[in-house]
C-alpha cells in the first residue's frame, strides 16, 4: 500500500472512531446535561476561533487573499445579515465583496 493511501486509511479510521466515541458517550444523556453543554460550548468556540482566524490570520491558501479583501468580505456578510437576516444573501454578498476587493488590489 502506498504511503498516501495508508495515511488516508489511518485518518479515516481515526475520524470514525472520534465520531463513534461521541455518539456512544453522550447517546444516553439529556441535551441539557452539563457534559453535553460543555461539549457544545467547546465545539462552538472552536468554530468561532476558526472563523476569526480565517479572516484575521489565515494560513495556507486563504492567506493568498489580501487581508483588506478578507475583512471587507466578512464585514459585508455581517452587515447583510444584520440588514436582511437569512443565509444566502449575506454569504453571496460577502463572497462577491471578497472577490471584488481581491481583484482591485
Amino acid at each position: 500500500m502506498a504511503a498516501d493511501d495508508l495515511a488516508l486509511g489511518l485518518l479515516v479510521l481515526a475520524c470514525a472512531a472520534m465520531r463513534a466515541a461521541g455518539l456512544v458517550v453522550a447517546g444516553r444523556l439529556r441535551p441539557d446535561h452539563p457534559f453535553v453543554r460543555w461539549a457544545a460550548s467547546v465545539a462552538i468556540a472552536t468554530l468561532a476561533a476558526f472563523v476569526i482566524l480565517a479572516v484575521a490570520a489565515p494560513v495556507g491558501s486563504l492567506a493568498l487573499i489580501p487581508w483588506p479583501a478578507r475583512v471587507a468580505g466578512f464585514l459585508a456578510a455581517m452587515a447583510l445579515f444584520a440588514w436582511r437576516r437569512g443565509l444566502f444573501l449575506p454569504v453571496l454578498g460577502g463572497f462577491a465583496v471578497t472577490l471584488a476587493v481581491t481583484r482591485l488590489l
Partner: protein
Amino acid sequence: MMFATACREALGVPALAMAATFVAFGAAVQAAGLGWGWALASALLVYGMPGQMVLLGALGAPGGALPAVAGAVAANARFLPMAVALAPWLGGGRRRFLALPFIAVTPWAMAMRRLPGLPTEQRLSWFLGFGLTSWVVAGLATMLGYAIAPRLEIWMLAALLFVNPLYFGVILAGDAVQPLVRRAVLLGVVAAPLTFVLPTAWALLGAGVVGGTLAFLWGELGRR
C-alpha cells in the same frame, strides 16, 4: 416526510458553501498529483476539511505518514465534542449510529439549530436527510474541482475556500441570540490568539477547549 424536507433544506445555501470548499479541495488534490479516487475517498470518508487539508499538505513531507496523520487527526478532533453535543438529539437507540458518517461542521451547525424545534421521532430522519444530501454534494463538488483544476486560477481557489468561514460566521451570528452560543462565540474569539503559541496541530482545538470551557463555566455561574 421529514427526510425529504431535510434534503431540500440541505440543497440551499449549505450546499453552496460546502460545494465551494470541496471544489477547492478537489482542485488542490489534482494539483498535488494524487488520483481522483484519493480525492473522493478523502472527501467522503474523512469528511472534515481541516483534516483533509492538513493531510494533503503534509504528505510527502519528511517523517513519513504518521506525523501527517497525527496532525490531520488533531485538526479534526472537534468531531468528538460535536458528536457529544449532537448525540442526545438523535435518540438513544442504535439507529443513531446511522448518522456517524455525516457528522461534520455543516450538518452539525444546522442540526443544532433545527433539531431542538422538531418532534423527537423526526430528529434522526431530519439529520440523515440533511447529512446524506450534504455528503453527496461534497463528493460531487470534489470531483468537479478535480476536473476543472487546470482552469482555475490560484486566487479563485482561495476565494472559494473563504466561502466556508463566511458561511459559518453568518450561522454563528444568527445563533448568537442563544446565551450559550453567544458566550461560546465571544470566548472562542478571545481565545483564538492562543493558536499562535500552541503546537500547530492542536492549536485550533486547544483554543476551542479553553474558550469553550470558560464559556461553559460562565454559564454555570449564571445559573446559580
